[in-house]
């Protein structure tokens, strides 16, 4: 596998685009299905994807697997689904357009034809445009400052919470889930998917679990059955089944 410089892609679409271009493929749903595995390989190997971005990379992985399964089992999919899949190809093309534009913009900036606004004294104590130099504001008192600062603190706390939420995402790793699911299955013969998801708190975790199962299916560790559309998914150990049969 040719190495792709991770620095160069600023998101899952960027990675997709690079793989597509490297393989010299056109952007079509069919070709997206072809590169699904390669995409997964990259995000599995890459240690440089920031935790905050991982959710988006995984979401894309799920989409690609969906497209791939559609290519393998077309009769399971409706026309609506097809439109969705074409959408991804369309979005990737749109993204490609903007990447090209950004290269043009970069060239324009590179000419260094900057404009400048009026300058200020470099270390001027005060900037004095009128003869006076103190213009007291009407709406300020110590109480106003106090209230205002409390608002600032509230905003900061909010910000921190948001960030913490995002970093937690990193803690769910496909590898860990694979081991986890393997363990459960080795203890029980059959388990339902919702059981595995019981502790999942985020969309990313659900996706990671799902990916882990797909991986295990691929490795012929487990098989799954689903009786109804959107019904419960049951997981069973592949080996157990072989012995029984």
């Amino acid at each position: 596998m040719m190495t792709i410089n991770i620095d160069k892609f600023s998101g899952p679409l960027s990675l997709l685009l690079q793989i597509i271009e490297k393989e010299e493929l056109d952007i079509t749903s069919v070709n997206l299905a072809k590169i699904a595995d390669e995409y997964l390989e990259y995000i599995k190997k890459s240690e440089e994807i920031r935790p905050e971005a991982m959710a988006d990379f995984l979401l894309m992985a799920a989409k690609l697997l969906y497209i791939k399964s559609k290519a393998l089992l077309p009769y399971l999919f409706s026309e609506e689904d097809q439109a969705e899949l074409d959408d991804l190809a369309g979005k990737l093309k749109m993204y490609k357009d903007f990447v090209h534009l950004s290269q043009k913009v970069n060239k324009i900036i590179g000419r260094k034809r900057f404009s400048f606004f009026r300058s200020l004294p470099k270390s001027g104590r005060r900037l004095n445009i009128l003869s006076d130099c103190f213009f007291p504001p009407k709406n300020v008192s110590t109480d106003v400052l106090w209230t205002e600062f409390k608002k600032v603190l509230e905003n900061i706390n909010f910000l921190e919470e948001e960030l913490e939420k995002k970093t937690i995402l990193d803690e769910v790793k496909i590898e860990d889930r694979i081991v986890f699911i393997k363990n459960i299955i080795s203890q029980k013969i059959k388990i339902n998917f919702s059981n595995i998801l019981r502790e999942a708190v985020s969309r990313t975790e659900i996706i990671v679990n799902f990916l882990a199962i797909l991986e295990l299916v691929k490795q012929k560790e487990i098989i799954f059955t689903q009786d109804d559309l959107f019904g419960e998914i049951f997981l069973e150990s592949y080996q157990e089944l072989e012995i029984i049969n």
Partner: protein
Amino acid sequence: MELKNLLESLFFVSYRPLTIKELVDFSKKDLLEVEEAIKELSEEYSNNNRGLRIIENNKKYQMASSPENAKLIQAFLQSEVSGELTPASLETLTIIAYRGPIKKIELEKIRGINCSLILRNLLIKGLIEEKAGREDDDNEYVVSLEFVKFLGIDNLKDLPEYEKFNKNEEIDKLLGKTDPLWQSAILGEDEEEKEKKEEEADEDSLDN
């Protein structure tokens, strides 16, 4: 023309960009007259090889030095503007320049990745501006005059293929579509419902 003369003086003394509304209020002239005068002034500057420019973005105007003199002015001011941007910053700025005002959710649809941090970063650098919407999700982003300054153009419309990408049905279609497949597939109907209720609740709390 008197108005053009006044506008030139105003642009010169102002240390900040002036909005069209401020200029109208201050000159006590019609919007159309003011716009016409700005256009004339700006064209005089460009056509007569002058050392000044009026740069415009998002109905804000500011006087700036002309881009031909960039090197010498930079030396005079001893400033070290490098204009180098990371790929992610560049990509985000380009999309905002061509498609602004643009919402975060639309930006994320184009880039396929969460943009909270990069937006914050660009806001701090003063390369973009945020226009508050009714709710947080409605906030829209535009590039700042500070960014236009780097380009050495008077107006974003001078960017290559601006019209084509600014108004583009194909893009509108792609952005306008929600992603129902993935929401329902992954979140399940229940969560979608929950989100809807939360949204309603938020709106309520705003209204009250």
